[in-house]
């Protein structure tokens, strides 16, 4: 007896050994009913492959092109380094320092800045407040996690980094929705650096340096924005 599951694997030409394939092939040649079942299966399954395609949003296309352009230009100026700068510990320190800077910029600054009355709908203020609080908690917990990376085993480090990357992605999406594409971009820029920390790859010094530069630019921009009362994350 040849089951539907066996027929399915026969159709896919995958998951059956040579003997099983030969047995089903012989049965198909001898049994018209079995061949009819296979034909019906193929026809119906193939009908599902004609899937429509939705268009890519223009903003998404632009984001991809910008990300790729940034990556390719970054690699052109990057120069391989050796020794201390290739060590995972240095990368962990650099990533921790970078996140700490972000925490200072986006978290602590918000805490110490005197409240300013901002004109705008209550709904927007409420959403921004929840978003800011969430971001502060995330950055603080990220700092703690990064600080513990050096003492972590490789498995623990990989798990911690994966957690940070996953949460960064949430806040990057939230930042975009809050109209902060720059913050979203910086948060996403952590991903390759953190991945290299997790797997111990070297040659990310250029990326970290680029990220450090971007953070300084952002700091300068935020300092300028601090003078504007309506500034909201």
């Amino acid at each position, binding site marked *: 007896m040849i089951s539907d599951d066996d027929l399915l694997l026969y159709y896919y030409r995958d998951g059956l050994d040579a003997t099983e394939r030969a047995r089903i092939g012989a049965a198909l040649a001898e049994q018209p009913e079995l061949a009819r079942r296979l034909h019906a299966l193929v026809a119906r399954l193939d009908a599902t492959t004609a899937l*429509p395609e939705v268009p890519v949003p223009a903003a998404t296309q632009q984001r991809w092109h910008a990300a790729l352009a940034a990556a390719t230009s970054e690699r052109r100026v990057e120069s391989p380094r050796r020794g201390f700068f290739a060590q995972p510990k240095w990368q962990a320190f650099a990533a921790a320092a970078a996140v700490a800077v972000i925490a200072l910029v986006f978290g602590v600054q918000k805490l110490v800045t005197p409240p300013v009355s901002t004109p705008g709908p209550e709904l927007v203020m409420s959403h921004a407040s929840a978003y800011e609080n969430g971001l502060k908690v995330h950055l603080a917990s990220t700092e703690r996690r990064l600080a513990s990376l050096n003492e972590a085993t490789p498995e623990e480090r990989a798990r911690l980094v994966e957690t940070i990357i996953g949460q960064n*992605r949430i806040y990057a999406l939230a930042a975009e929705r809050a109209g902060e594409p720059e913050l979203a971009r910086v948060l996403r820029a952590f991903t390759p650096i953190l991945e290299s920390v997790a797997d111990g790859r070297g040659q990310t010094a250029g990326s970290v340096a680029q990220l450090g530069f971007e953070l300084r630019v952002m700091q300068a921009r935020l300092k300028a924005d601090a003078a504007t009362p309506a500034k909201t994350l």
Partner: protein
Amino acid sequence: MLTLLKSWVRPDAFQAVLTERSGRWYNACLRITRDADLAADAVQDALLKAWDRRDDFRGEAALDSWIHRIALNAAIDLTRRRKRRAEEELEDDRFEAAPSESPESEYAQEALGRDLGTALQRLSTMERQVFLLKHIEGWRLDEIAESLQTTINGVKHALFRAVRKLRVDLHVWRGES
């Protein structure tokens, strides 16, 4: 030969293939993730990973196919992480809509076609991903198992379950069961 390959994988080659083929990558990722943001992130991750690992590209497949595969793996990874986060950190979920209710999932529904999209909603994430990777993307069972971090037998059984459920909704093998 190596020089030729390396010279071919230049930034302009990536930009060109991005312009030409990103719609295909995006739709494939959308079917896997059922979330427009995750699909967009998966394509971006794939682009950056592919660029970062361009020296690994041997030219056996087209650059488009190579990035397509990386994007699908990224989509699977993002879906897995989202699921894990949802389980472990419920308090952080306020920025995410439930997949079945979000506009993104409706958008994904369009990418699957109404009939297949509706039918696939009855499948578990594993069943849906296995079916899409096997039937639509044509991956081998062992490749799917590796990507989904499971066994080949696990993939087979998910595939069998998926097809059985789809048979009901799509009337596959009509009159046979």
